[in-house]
Every structure is written in C-alpha cells, then in structure tokens.
C-alpha cells in the first residue's frame, strides 16, 4: 500500500490526516455502509464541507464523500505549477458550443476541500440588489432568499474563515469588520489602485481567505501568508483558509466521517420514490452507503451529471428533474484581461494573485447592459503566463521567448464578470465513459449579446486603467472564463426551479443540493463566499425543519 493520496485512501481505519501536523492523524468516527446515516454529502468543497461540519455539530450522523485525494498541504504540495495540476479535476469533460468553457484549474478541483484547495481565496459578498436581479435590476431571476439573511451568514462565514480584509469596505451596506486585516499590496496591486484612482474609481485591498497573522484553530495553527504566490497551486503553508483546513477538521471533530477517493456514481432511489443512499467507487470496487438524506455538493458540472446519471424508470430524465432544468442555465463568469508592460519591475509572482480589486462596475448602473463585473490585479506564474501569451496573442517561436523575457515587467487586470442565465447553456451526459465507467459530462456554452457587451465594456475600462499608469504594449485576453453556477437552480416555483429556497429538491424531499449549482444568477464576484454562506444557512434550515419534524 502506497502513501500516495491519489492511489489509496487516507481517511480510513478510524483516522484521518491531521493537516496541521506532518505525519499526524486525528481520530475519525466511521460508519458502516449498511448503517443508515442521516446525511450522505457528495462533495467536500465550498458548499459540502461547511454543511457537513454544521450538521455534525448539530448532532446528525454525516458521511462526506469526495472523489478527490486527502492532501496534507505541508508535505504534499510542491512549488510547481505542473505537479500541482493534480489538484484539478482532470478527468475528461467534453466542451462545445460557440464559446466552449475551459475547465480544469479554471474552475474545477478534485480534492477533499474541493476547489477551495486551489482557489484564489477572493471572498466577496454579493451586492444586495442581485438577490432581486429581476425585480430590481430587470434581468436574470430573483433569488428566493433575502439579502439580509445572506448578510448574516456572510458574517458567519467570514469569521469562520478569518477573512483578511480592509478596515473599511467601500461598497454595499455596513458589514462587521473583517476578522483579520488586509494584506500588504504588491506591485501589481498598487498599479490596480493607481489605475483606479486615475479613473476616479474606488478600489480596495481584496478580502482574502488567507491569514495575515497567525491563527490558532481549535486543532492546529495557520501561520500568516509568506507571499510565495503559488496560491492557485495549493498552499503549502496552511495560511490559506481552504475547507481542508477549516470546516473539514471541524467536521471530523464533531463526529463526521470523510471518505476520500470515493467517487459517487449513482444515487439510489427506493420504491417510495425517495433516495435511499449512494453508490460510490472506492479502492477498486463499488460500495453502497445507506442514508436518510443525500446532499449533492459536486459543483455545477458534477452535480447535474450525478442527478442525470441516477435516472430510473420512475425518474427517466434524472432525479429532481420534473422541471427539466437539471443541467440547464449553466453560467460561467467572464474572466477576460488586459495586460501590459511597465518600465518598473513588478515581479507579480509575489503574493496572492489578486491583492486589490475594484467593484466599481458592480455598483454603478450607468451601463447599457445588464449585470456587473469587478476587476483584480494578476500574478500568473510562468506556465500560465505562457498559456496566455500563446492563446491570447497566438505567439510561438522566438517571438514567444522574446515576449516571455519581459516577465518581471508585466502588469495585468482581470475581470470577474456576470454572465446571464440562458437555458440553452447546459450540462448533459455524453456517450463516452470515464475511468469509473460513468458517462462523461458534456458542457455546452455560448455567450449572449449582453455577455459580450459587458466584456467589451470591461476590456475598454481595464485598458484605460492600465494606460493611466503608463503601461505599454497592451494586449487583451478576449477569451477566458472561470467560475460556474446555475445547473440546479433554486426558486419558489417547482416548474421553473430544481430546489426550493432551502436547497431541498421539489421532487424528492430527501434529496438536496448545496453548491453553486443552486445560483439563479451568478453576480459579478467570485462565488465561494456565497456558496459557503448558503451552506451555513442550509444547515440552520435543516436544524429548524428537524425540530419541527419536517425533515
């Protein structure tokens, strides 16, 4: 038996890795497959992990299953882009449409802790009006939750993750002070700030899920960030507050079980039409875990994939799909950028990639398109930078090497932009099968007119900002997207949504969804904080329902 976490499970035999102590273990309660646990949660990322922890802390029996490995960041993470691509969901997915989505490291993680093990830690709140996008702003769909309720859970999430943010946040209603102070700006971030000021816009140090001072968890320590710049390739210091070092240890301490290298392939449905458990592949064979409730938290591709793949005679179109919307209304976010060269050394590889952000165009409605966007400083490492040079500029040969030599003088601004829900953008099942024998996901995406208008506006604005700080040789990255949402949308009407405001599917009362798939709109900010806040809210809702015997 090897110790390679990609080969054999680590969370087994009554213990799980202690991510804070090299070689250390923490005790883990285990359940037998034939034990009827209260909740089986599929996925341990931004949505799954907080839910597992809060349910376990509330006294429920919970098993969290993740297809990915259980990493020990202090030991397993190298300072190397290529090696660390192991954190991404690299299994085949087929992409098509007018604007096929780039997957892998742009939006898909495969690890205990999900995509938060490799995310850029940007932790922004939604603009309150976005929860009523249709009623207040005239586009998309309304969320079936009130912004004030979300504001409460945002605060809890920010405390739990010790978000390091500015003393005063320039936009939106009052929020409590971020628990840790913002990080120092690096050169790239300073250029964003000066560029924003030159355009008369406010900017702010980005609220980030990495600590700026030591943190004593209940079960270990996080040292402050060392500004090594490999954030999106795994934090080897544990300064990053991924789910792996926050809610997962809490879940274990509260008596939940985590099963790594456990790919759930099918949700079983009983004769009564309710789900009865999950089939999962682990250590070379299929197992079946019985559960009173199943929560799917696999993010916007794997969640619909699993629901569709679990079709039965009773549910021939997949589970929870009477609306026909499972897999539909897939949204990504525009991630275009403008890059340039400075006379000064920027050396953007130091520190988290996005140390400064401006949300100006999330809050300014003087636009002739719907939706908002923000932009952030950038710090691509060599392989990623080469990818941008080849894909955005078509450079190769000596021209590529010459351009890459200017690495230490580059500056860039990258947007996170709202894309509108369109039911033609969807996830379906291909005929092709993966290594588990499961049908591969097929992802169809095309940008709409509003999406394109927003992108052009953003590119123009970012270009002006860089020109204002004296950047030269500007070029645009016109084709890039990142975070996902939408494929199991929440709503108040079963005909036009998959789950209700509590994340409970309309069709099957013991089948739930707890991840970004439930978003009716995607907003102009990174989704992880909103996903976690929804999960915390969902845990409270489940407790309340249980207390009223409505579970």
């Amino acid at each position, binding site marked *: 038996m090897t110790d390679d976490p990609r080969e054999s499970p680590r969370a087994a035999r009554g213990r799980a890795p202690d991510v804070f102590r090299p070689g250390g273990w923490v005790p883990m309660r285990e359940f037998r497959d034939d034990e009827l646990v209260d909740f089986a949660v599929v996925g341990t990322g931004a949505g799954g992990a907080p839910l597992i922890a809060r349910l376990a802390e509330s006294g429920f029996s919970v098993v969290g299953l993740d297809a990915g490995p259980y990493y020990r960041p202090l030991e397993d993470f190298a300072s190397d882009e290529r090696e660390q691509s192991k954190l991404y969901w690299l299994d085949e997915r087929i992409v098509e449409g007018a604007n096929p989505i780039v997957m892998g490291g742009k939006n898909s993680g495969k690890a205990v802790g999900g995509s938060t093990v490799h995310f850029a830690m940007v932790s922004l709140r939604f603009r309150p009006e976005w929860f009523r996008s249709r009623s207040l702003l005239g586009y998309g769909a309304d969320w079936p939750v009130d912004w004030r309720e979300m504001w409460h859970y945002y605060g809890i999430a920010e405390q739990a993750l010790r978000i390091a943010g500015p003393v005063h946040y320039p936009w939106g209603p009052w929020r409590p002070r971020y628990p840790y102070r913002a990080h120092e*700006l690096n050169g790239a971030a*300073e250029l964003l700030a000066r560029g924003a*000021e030159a355009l008369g816009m406010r900017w702010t140090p980005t609220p980030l899920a990495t600590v700026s001072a030591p943190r004593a968890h209940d079960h270990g320590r996080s040292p402050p960030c060392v500004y090594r710049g490999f954030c999106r390739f795994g934090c080897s210091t544990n300064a990053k507050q991924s789910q792996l070092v926050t809610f997962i240890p809490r879940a274990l301490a509260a008596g939940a079980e985590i099963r790594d290298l456990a790919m759930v392939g099918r949700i079983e449905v009983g004769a009564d039409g309710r789900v009865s458990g999950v089939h999962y592949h682990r250590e070379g064979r299929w197992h079946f875990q019985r559960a009173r409730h199943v929560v799917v938290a696999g993010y916007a591709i794997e969640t619909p994939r699993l629901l569709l793949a679990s079709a039965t005679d009773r549910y021939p179109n997949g589970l929870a799909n009477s609306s026909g919307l499972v897999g539909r209304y897939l949204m990504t976010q525009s991630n275009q950028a403008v890059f340039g060269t400075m006379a000064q050394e920027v050396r953007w590889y130091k520190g988290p990639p996005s140390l400064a952000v401006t949300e100006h165009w999330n809050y300014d409605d003087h636009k002739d398109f719907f939706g908002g966007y923000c932009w952030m400083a950038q710090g691509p490492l060599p392989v990623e930078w080469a990818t941008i040079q080849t894909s955005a500029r078509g450079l190769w040969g000596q021209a590529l090497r010459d351009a890459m030599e200017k690495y230490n003088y580059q500056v860039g601004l990258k947007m996170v932009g709202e894309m509108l829900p369109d039911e033609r953008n969807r996830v379906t099942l291909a005929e092709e099968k993966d290594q588990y024998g499961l049908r591969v996901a097929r992802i169809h995406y095309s940008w709409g007119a509003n999406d394109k208008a927003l992108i052009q506006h953003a590119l123009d604005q970012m270009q002006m900002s860089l020109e204002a700080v004296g950047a030269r040789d500007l070029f645009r990255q016109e084709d890039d997207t990142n975070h996902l949402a939408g494929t199991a949308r929440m709503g108040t009407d079963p005909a036009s949504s998959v789950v209700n405001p509590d994340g409970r599917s309309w069709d099957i009362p013991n089948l739930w969804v707890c991840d970004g798939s439930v978003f009716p709109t995607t907003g102009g900010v990174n989704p992880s904080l909103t996903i976690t806040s929804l999960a915390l809210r969902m845990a409270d809702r489940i407790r309340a329902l249980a207390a009223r015997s409505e579970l």
Partner: protein
Amino acid sequence: MSSRQPPAALLWATLGAVVIGGAGLALRSGRRAARPLPLALHPGRSSTVRAARRLNRAAGVLATSVLADSAVEHYRGSFHNRAMIAPLISGGLSLVVSLHGNADKRAGAHSVRDAVYALALLTGLIGTAFHLYNVGKKPGGFRWENLFYGAPLGAPAALLLSGSTGYLAERVRDTPRGRIPRIAGFPAGRTVAAATALGLLGTVAEAGLLHFRGAFNDPFMFAPVTLPPLSALCMANAALGPRRRQRWLTRALLRLTVCLGLAGVGFHLRGINRQMGGWHNVRQNLLNGPPIPAPPSFSGLALAGLAALGLMEDHPDG
C-alpha cells in the same frame, strides 16, 4: 542583492562616527577630571546627578531600540533612499553618549552629549516627516492599510524621545549648586513626567496600531495597550497634579512597564517562531515577523518616568 544597499562606505562612516564620538567623549572627560569638587559643598548635587544618569540610561535604551529597529526596517526597505542610514548613525551615537553619560558622575552638561542628543531629536523630527510623506504618497493616502504597511509613523519618534530624554538629562545635570533642577522654568521632575506620559501614549498608539494589524491574534498582545496607558495616566497626574511624598502605585506601574518592554522581546521571539519556517526562515521572518527591538522603547520611557519620580521625591517643592 536588493535594489539598493547603503554603500559600504556609509556603513564604515557610521562605525567611524561612533568610534570617533566615543573617543571625543573620552578625551573631554579626561580633561574635566582634573578639577574635582568637594561633595560637601553641594548637598543637592548627588541626587541631581543620579537623576541625570538615570535619564541617560533611559535615553540609551531608547537609542538601542531605535538603532536595531531602524536597521532591520530600513534594510527591509532596501535603503532605497540614502537618508535611511541617518537613524542608524544617530541612534548609534546616542547609544554611545548615553553609555558615557551613565558612567559620568560629574555635574554639568556635556557639550558632545548635548550635541548628539540634539541631533537625535532633529533626526527623529525629520524622520517623522519622511515617514509621513512615505505613507501619504501611497494609493489611498492615510488609510489604515498604509499605516499598517507603510513607514511606521511613530518609529522616528522613538529617536526623538531618546534625544529629548537625553537633552533633559543634560539640563538636569546642569543645575547650578543649591538650586532645584528646572527645565525651561518648570520643575524638572514634572517636565520629565509630562514628556514621559506623552512618549508612552505615542508608543502605545504605535504598538496598538501594529497589534491591530496582527488582529490581536494572541491575548498577550493587549498588554502594551493596557498597562502603559495606566502608567501614562499616573505620569500625567504626577506632572500636573498636586505634589505628593510617595507615589508607590506610579513607581510600581513604571517598573512593570520596564518589565513589559523586556517581556515584549520574548513574545516577539516567540512570534518569529510562529511564522512559517520559524527560525529556519529567519531571513524572511526577521523582516515580516514581529519586530524584536521595538518593545524595549517602553522600557526606556518607563526608566525616564522613574527618573522623574526620583527628581520629584528629591525635590518635593519643585
């Protein structure tokens, strides 16, 4: 190497200045020793000198803190402006003359010490202006985050305080025989107490700012914003309030504050250990971790406060 290191010449110049300054002091004291005065003729003189030497010690502790702290921080700043060598030179000289003053049992101000202390005061003032400029020109100007990560506004003040404490030491020492020590017409004890109170409050603000930046992640980080303000309060009361024979509470608080400054060094050493890589990553952690030489500035100020108490007890009518 980083973008700019002080040329080796400047570093040698610093060392040379310190050596020459020390030699100059030694030579001068040699001449002075030829005229001893009978102690009996100066009943108040020994207590005055004692107070002055205490103040020299206080100034020396502050100067040491400034020398070490500015060396590390300006190295972190890559000495990108040549003037950043100034606090190392001035702090070093202040330390040397303070050692000299501590050993010097004679009455009368010393011109070299006076000059060095005046230079420290001036350097501290100019340094504060530089630091204000440094923070002000960052994007966002005087926002919290620039106060956290820009040049610390209160740090040059420690040099200013070293210089003023030393200046007060020389004025006290300079008291003519049979007179109560006075500074600018005011009783010396109360003047030093007032200066100490202000200095403590300023240092509390600086430590508080940086501990706020650290989110008070350890409960002990509240110590420098709770104890020294009490000392400052008592010092202010001593400076402005009715005269009192004994100030046992003030003395106790000041002694605790001296200990606090030393304990702070220990806490900061522990803090370095808590950074990633601990002492194995010393080249980064010495720059990014808690500043080891900073806490003793509380000790220096508290020593000045104790000297003020001594003055007030020796000359209760002053």
